[in-house]
């Protein structure tokens, strides 16, 4: 039997499809199901890739989860329907990797706290914060690992074409969830998140600016080294993650500019915001899968 852990993806939209394409290359995850609420382009694509599909939402998946040994489920829908999806798949013994900003489970930003989460053992639900959070919280953490950060603020600028209707409808969930994770994962005492959407053609690459206000004078050498190290950690799963300038220092302000170019799996390369989300979600799932395969955490769904 393959060591791979079998998985389902809920949400056959842009994020779900991009995630599927990445998961099909994974050494640890075997995508089996794609779940939608109706016939759609995304469902058709998943079927073409050989996936089993549900067009009746998560209820169409649940009866087959045990038989198909689905142990990890990704939710790429929206914060509003996530709670219901999560409850149903967790009842079937799967781990939910939440790519919506619902934030039911603990926040996970892989290079910052995935190791800690794994040490805590099995979780029912892990939340991937937001695209802006995945792109910026590693930088806040890189500074807060050196010295106290009293305030962390991120500005995510994304191409209009890379923000779907779900995010637009619930933009406050983006700002709130990101701000919360800047504090809880990034280590800033207070967090703030701003998102700006630019419709320029050709679409601009995702750009993020990270401002930290340190408690004491910043240790410039140590912070610079920490930032460069962290960029390398992120590049392990998002090769297009680049430091474009900084860290620059102005009194107690530390500012870092990054750019995120996607892999271009399903979405164009400018959608680095979506790419970093699917890459982080998959990275998290792979680490859980590896821990399950090694018996470090229990895989309760195994029949």
């Amino acid at each position, binding site marked *: 039997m393959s060591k791979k852990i079998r998985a389902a993806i809920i949400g056959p939209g842009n994020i779900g499809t991009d995630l599927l394409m990445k998961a099909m290359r994974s050494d640890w995850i075997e995508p089996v199901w794609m779940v939608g609420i109706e016939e759609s382009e995304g469902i058709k694509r998943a079927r073409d890739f050989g996936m089993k599909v549900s067009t009746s939402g998560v209820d169409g998946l649940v009866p087959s989860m045990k038989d198909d040994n689905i142990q990890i489920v990704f939710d790429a829908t929206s914060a509003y329907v996530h709670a219901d999806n999560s409850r149903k798949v967790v009842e079937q013994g799967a781990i939910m990797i939440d790519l919506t900003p619902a934030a039911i489970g603990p926040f996970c930003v892989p290079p910052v706290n995935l190791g800690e989460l794994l040490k805590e053992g099995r979780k029912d639900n892990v939340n991937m914060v937001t695209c802006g959070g995945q792109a910026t919280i590693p930088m806040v953490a890189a500074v807060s690992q050196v010295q106290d950060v009293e*305030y962390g*603020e991120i*500005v995510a*600028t994304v191409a*209009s074409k890379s923000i779907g*209707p779900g995010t*637009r*409808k*619930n*933009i*406050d969930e*983006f*700002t*709130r969830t990101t701000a919360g994770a800047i504090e809880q994962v990034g280590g800033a005492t207070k967090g*703030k998140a*701003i*998102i*700006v*959407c*630019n*419709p*320029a053609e050709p679409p*601009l690459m995702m*750009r993020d*600016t990270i*401002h930290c*206000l340190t408690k004491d004078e910043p240790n410039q050498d140590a912070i610079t080294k920490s930032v460069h190290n962290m960029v390398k950690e992120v590049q392990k799963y998002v090769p297009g993650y680049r430091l*474009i*300038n900084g860290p*620059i220092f102005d009194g107690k*302000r530390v*500012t870092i*500019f990054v750019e995120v170019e996607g892999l271009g799996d399903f979405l164009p390369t400018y959608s680095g915001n979506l790419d970093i989300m699917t890459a982080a979600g998959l990275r998290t799932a792979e680490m859980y899968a590896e821990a399950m395969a090694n018996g470090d955490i229990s895989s309760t769904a195994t029949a």
Partner: protein
Amino acid sequence: MDLKGKKVTLHDMCLRDGMHPKQHQISIDEMIDIAVALDESGVPLIEVTHGDGLGGASVNYGFPAASDEAYLDAVIPKMKNAKISALLLPGIGTVDHLKMAADIGVSTIRVATHCTEADFSEQHIGLASKMGLDTVGFLMMAHMISAEALLEQALLMESYGANCIYCTDSAGYMLPHQVTERIALLRSKLKPETELGFHGHHNMALGVANSLAAIEAGANRIDGSAAGLGAGAGNTPLEVLAAVLKRMDADTGIDIFKLMAVAEEKIVPLMDNIVRVDRDSLTLGYAGVYSSFLLFAQRASAKYGVPSQDILLEMARLKAVGGQEDQIELVAMEMAEAKK
């Protein structure tokens, strides 16, 4: 142009847009003093708080002298007739800010998005409208798209519950015929009961002319600012517009001599630098750059030794939209690097 008897609601911006040239440092006492004087001049609607609206307090846009809550708390109880409005940019502020402002007693919430991104405002317009607030959809940088494209976005905001839609010339780029074209199309296609507004910047010295064009084409709410205190070369100078409208026998309900006194005696002395059309602010208008980028470009110019005008022109070339202040320092650094 015949505006005789036409009722026009003038909306003062000096305590919100005026926060930009003041780097958000207008004190609570100054705000109370000016708002009371505007109220006594018959200005019916006054906007206060951070220049970038509710929740704007940040490293990116600047930390204000006092919180949104403190400004609203201080000003609202002092008003005899004037109502107070607040601006909210989704992506910066949230419905939590909106609820806070409503609890303190604002009459009007203006939800602002870039002109192509109206669907970011559904949550906020929907809630404000449901709460019974005067709810305005505020389409910024409206020069960047055609009248037809603007209409599509305006229809979205109207469908979410906005009872008034603004064509917002954030860059002070529009010429009068472009204002006429946009407002006239909105007027012919939006519900007859939906009000229309125009927000101008004086970067091409067209604030008053554009406002008149908007009124003639069907707008009934016009933003201006006493002594023009606002981003870039400022907003449409409100006392000038009020005087012009008075000469045209339009009905604004404003005592123009009292308003002139506010501008002359309270606002001008408050200015750190005289807000006027100069090389940089004219460049904003000429090239179509978001007006609040002005001071950011000037500070970056001083720090990195590249001309502020060049920074602004580069921001225009990048098609930067409102909120991208963070890119200004980056652009200046890159230009300085390229010069080496």
